[in-house]
């Protein structure tokens, strides 16, 4: 699909874009040295980076109602998201949320192309900060290329070692923050200070730190090109009205260098001065003038740099610009089209459904586990007895006392070790109970019964769970 688009957008300059894309998959990797760029979109990208990284490193330290605001407490199997507490039983909501997230991504892609890739994807954001560190230590693009070609020297080693040291420290802190979303980060930092981190916490900090260092320091654009599933299938969401970054071939060609002030028309040239700055700033190392390519992450660095050149030359901006295929062909771009309308309707419906479902969620859960050691037991009174363990989970924000009932067979007797069933907020109570009945009422070997638990102070807060009652079959 991306190959098709490449050939439709700029068929003349890239007749074999599809072939070259295939070759590129197994091409030897050449290091890309993106040149530093300034301008509107570079500023937007920096703002995005600061906000997103700020959220990632900052939110882990926020507290809410006496617990970490966002904590996916895997050891305790509880998930705190500000005022809400989720349990593994709520997995359904999480799956629903993932569907909404995926649809949002499709929606944005259909409307505005690879905005996600260019501004918000963690791979882009972390690569951006790693590039920034690299430029602060190693200098400009040209200095970096020169240093990499030079033989190893003490000065070169010192610069490289400094860069990697800072990258690794930053990566380890990233790993630490990541683990801090799964184990309370304040406890984690206390453990780190006292050098008594658990082995698995240590392992995951190193693992995630290594992944950050490898992906943002070394792999960079290769992650987008070889590893990202979205980059491969995003073009399926594209149509002729999707916002893309494109080079205005009609205006730019034939390209060529010229002196300032010379009328390009006299020389038979287009507006492209062939300065190759758009190639130098590209983080994935492509030439946007070859047409739309699947390697393009839509970061708009080439727009910023080309606009500066156009300004210097006294030409109008926008030789490389955000546009649509239709706009390029002089056809009006349609924002409202069946695809986007469908996505809007689906998204609104799913989001409203999720909000409603969460607001209507009963914060009470009951699991019934049969005693596995015996099927049933006969009591001294001649009754048949089954033993269960009930797990009462209070997902509400306050403690509750509950009434427990059992039904489904005539004359069921329920015995609990405690008469008062009280569960604090966010806790699980394991309650062994025994249920007995006169065997005369048993028609089958396995009978269905129901446990119902309801809060004493809020009768509408109740949950019913089915269970099996086993016993001998009396008479036929």
């Amino acid at each position, binding site marked *: 699909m991306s190959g098709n688009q490449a050939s439709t957008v700029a068929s003349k300059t890239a007749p074999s874009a599809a072939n070259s894309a295939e*070759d590129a*998959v*197994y*091409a*030897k*990797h050449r290091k890309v040295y993106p040149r530093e760029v300034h301008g509107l979109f570079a500023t937007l990208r920096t703002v995005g980076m600061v906000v997103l990284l700020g959220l990632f490193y900052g939110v882990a330290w926020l507290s809410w109602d006496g617990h970490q605001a966002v904590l996916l407490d*895997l*050891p305790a*199997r509880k998930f705190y998201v500000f005022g809400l507490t989720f349990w*593994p039983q709520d*997995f359904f909501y999480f799956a629903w949320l993932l569907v909404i997230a995926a649809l949002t991504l499709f929606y944005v892609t259909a409307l505005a192309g690879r905005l996600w890739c260019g501004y918000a994807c963690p791979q882009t954001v972390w690569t951006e900060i790693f590039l920034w560190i690299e430029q602060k230590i190693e200098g400009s693009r040209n200095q970096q290329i020169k240093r990499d070609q030079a033989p190893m020297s003490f000065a070169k080693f010192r610069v490289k070692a400094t860069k990697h040291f800072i990258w690794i420290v930053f990566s380890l802190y990233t790993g630490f923050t990541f683990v801090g979303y799964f*184990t309370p980060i304040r406890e984690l930092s206390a453990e780190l200070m006292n050098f008594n981190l*658990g*082995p*698995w*916490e240590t*392992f*995951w900090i190193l693992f995630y730190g290594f992944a950050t260092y490898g992906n943002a320091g070394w792999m960079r654009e290769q992650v987008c090109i*070889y*590893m990202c*599933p979205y980059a491969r299938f995003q073009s399926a969401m594209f149509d002729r009205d999707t916002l893309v970054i494109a080079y205005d071939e009609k205006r730019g060609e034939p390209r060529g260098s010229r002196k300032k002030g010379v009328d390009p028309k006299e020389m038979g040239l287009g507006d492209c001065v062939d300065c190759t700055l758009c190639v130098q700033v590209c983080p994935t190392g492509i030439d946007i003038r070859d047409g739309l390519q699947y390697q393009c992450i839509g970061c708009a660095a080439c727009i910023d740099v080309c606009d500066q050149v156009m300004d210097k030359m006294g030409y109008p901006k926008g030789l490389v610009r955000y546009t649509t295929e239709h706009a390029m062909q002089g056809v009006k771009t349609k924002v409202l089209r069946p695809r986007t309308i469908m996505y809007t309707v689906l998204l609104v419906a799913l989001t409203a459904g999720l909000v409603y479902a969460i607001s209507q969620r009963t914060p009470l859960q009951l699991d019934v586990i049969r005693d*596995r050691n015996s099927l049933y037991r006969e009591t001294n009174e001649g009754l048949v007895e089954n033993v269960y363990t009930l797990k009462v989970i209070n997902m509400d924000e306050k403690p509750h006392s509950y009434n427990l009932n059992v039904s489904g067979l005539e004359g069921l007797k329920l015995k609990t070790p405690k008469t008062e069933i009280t569960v604090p907020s966010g806790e699980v109570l394991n309650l062994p109970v025994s249920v007995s009945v006169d065997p005369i009422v048993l028609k089958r070997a396995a009978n269905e019964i129901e446990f119902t638990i309801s809060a004493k102070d809020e009768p509408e807060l109740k949950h019913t769970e089915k269970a099996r009652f086993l016993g001998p079959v009396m008479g036929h």
Partner: protein
Amino acid sequence: MNVRTNLPEDDTNSGAPGIQRIIAILWPSFLTSGIATGLFFTLFDPHELMMLSGHLEISRTAAYSIGFFSFWLLTASTCALTCYFLRPCERVPGHK
């Protein structure tokens, strides 16, 4: 002599960096094992599994981690096998 056929030159051993094949095995399996681990441990609490089976007591974090790497080993083997079977068969000597 066994002769390999139909292999594009790039795909055998010449220009193709082996790292990309390693990524093609480790990365998709990493993604799917992550999903599998999430689903599995949503349904089953490692504590209860260990109580039922009577195995040694380890922390949940340890159980999740071991579970994840077991899944990863499984899915990576699948990817590796797929990669292996994608290569054309070697011809039997003496047959066309």
